[in-house]
């Protein structure tokens, strides 16, 4: 099956700005799904609100476009009531970690089998460029005209601490790695988190004088490195890419089967 077979082509060209990294992430995601040989009817995509969340409209899966920040809560209901589906939950950084931050850590804690994709463009794009929980200290945004004094989350350490059993990071520049990581994340049984740095040339890039989409991709190339690389040792400011956590722990729906068993055998 070709990537295009997974698309709802009638909605193309998509609504994202020229050079936005979200489309690249969509492509990587579909290639991962294709490599796994998954059928459209076994895939459920649940998204929230924001630029990133529009991704669900473009894929020919079962798609649930929900409320800002709440995608993981809806997804939990879908997954627990129909555990056989493959669930993916793409979210923006504000969607996942500001308004949805509580749902994010609790879904990770439960280790419920789904793939959370944080499409991190460091900004609220849909509303026009306000600072997000991943904008970072010192950056400019329409609501941080004197530079941001909020510190950003580190998604990888946050997700790891919250209990996610698969945690990875890559960028929209590193497309092959993005596809490979997504493929592993989808195949992983448990709560997987993939942070993908995505460029927003329209708001974050323009506001912070980072140049064009091309310049922003080059920034990803030059400012990131493989986990544990020599470059990282020499320059601690580099952002690491790769799989940080990959472990097997009891998954929530499987654990719930034990609850059913105990309840029905009269035990506790």
């Amino acid at each position, binding site marked *: 099956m070709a990537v295009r077979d997974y698309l709802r082509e009638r*909605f193309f060209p998509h609504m994202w700005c020229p050079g936005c990294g979200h489309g690249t992430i969509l492509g990587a995601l579909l290639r991962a799904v294709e490599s796994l040989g998954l059928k*459209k*009817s076994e895939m*459920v995509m*649940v998204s929230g609100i924001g630029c990133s969340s529009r991704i*669900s*409209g473009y894929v*020919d*899966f*079962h*798609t*649930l*476009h*929900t*409320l800002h920040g*709440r995608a993981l*809560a*809806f*997804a*939990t*209901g*879908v*997954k*627990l*009531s*129909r555990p*056989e*589906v493959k669930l993916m939950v793409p979210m923006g950084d504000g969607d996942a970690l500001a308004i949805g931050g*509580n*749902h994010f850590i*609790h879904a990770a804690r439960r280790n419920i089998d789904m793939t959370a994709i944080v499409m991190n463009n460091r900004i609220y794009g849909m509303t026009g460029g306000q600072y997000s929980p991943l904008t970072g200290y010192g950056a400019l945004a329409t609501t941080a005209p004197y530079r941001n004094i909020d510190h950003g989350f580190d998604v990888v350490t946050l997700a790891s601490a919250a209990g996610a059993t698969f945690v990875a990071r890559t960028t929209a520049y590193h497309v092959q790695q993005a596809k490979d990581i997504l493929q592993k994340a989808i195949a992983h049984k448990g709560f997987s988190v993939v942070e993908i740095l995505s460029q927003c040339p329209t708001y974050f890039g323009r506001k912070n004088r980072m140049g064009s989409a091309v310049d922003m991709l080059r920034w990803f190339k030059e400012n990131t490195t493989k986990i544990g690389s020599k470059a990282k040792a020499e320059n601690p400011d580099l952002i690491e890419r790769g799989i940080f956590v990959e472990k097997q722990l009891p998954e929530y729906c499987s654990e*719930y089967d034990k*609850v*059913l068993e*105990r*309840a*029905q055998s009269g035990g506790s």
Partner: protein
Amino acid sequence: MSDNVKFVQGNEACVEGALYAGLNFFAGYPITPSTEVAEALSSRLPQKGGKFIQMEDEIASICAIIGASLTGHKVMTATSGPGFSLMQEGLGYAIMAEIPCVIVNVQRGGPSTGNPTHVSQGDINQARWGTHGDHAVIALTASNHQDVFAITVDAFNLAETYRTPVVLLFDEVLGHMREKLTIPDPGQIPLVERLWTSVKEGVDYHPYLPREDGRLPMSDFGGVHRYNVTGLFHDMWGFPSADPGVVHGLLRHLVDKIYNNENAIARYKEYYMEDARTIFISYGSSARSALHVVEYLRPRGVPIGLLELQTLWPFPSRIVREKCADAQAVVVVEMNMGQILNEVKTAVDRPDSVYLANRIDGTLITPTDIRNILRVIQGKGV
């Protein structure tokens, strides 16, 4: 005593009703005075193969049940006051996306944290208008445990019939009081099951195209038909649309499907209404006190009756107007500052003959309170 006869709290009666109706997915978050609903279901649901999950908050709870309803299950959450406030955005989503679900609000005193362990009926208007935007909602209540059971079953039936959330507005007294409940045999109360589409796999299915009778057949999410669900205004496939015709048509549909069926959705009980010149209108636990007054005064020759409302939204205006046509005085008995009073005044021909008998201090309004207020209304003093 038969197994079918129980001595239970109202919250447990609600649980029994939900299980009778076929509930098999519950998500909730602990909050007084509704917690017993979650506690009982955490034990009962897995026994019958259903799922119970305690979420991180009330927002997540309502979202989770909406997700589970989509996959084809009968679902419910239960909460109180502040938790109901948190559920408003999810309630709006379920209305917009037309997803059947039942939301129990065992009311306590508000605003804010308010009076958590005490009774109130202060959330009537929140149930109606708590979520933003024009919309319609179904809200039901009851005044005794047998009726709590039956109205809970009804809530599931209406949710499935109209593909909409239904709010059950109980209160702390009802939730925690214990009384007898007889569980009907299976089949004794008819159940409305999910209306599944007859569209076959591989054929274009329209999740938002109503049949001629107005009902919208569903297809289990994750099943044979792939479609989109959104909280945005959407076309018949569920895809977002800002087309003025689509927006207008959908909003009209969402409101009309409820308001055009106001009489069909109206549930109420009448006590001594035939020749009543003074009519109490009440609901929930306050209706118990109102009924007590009626039963005290009737043998003393006072032509007084009670119209007990079980459907609060859509407000049964036509029924109230008709029933109160010959009344000299209509006294609304409720535990708030007149939330149903205003609806009654709007409904009847002579709003200046409508009075309020209320109590708002966290204490159940007593028959004595009502009689005293009645004497004041009648110009007799207390």
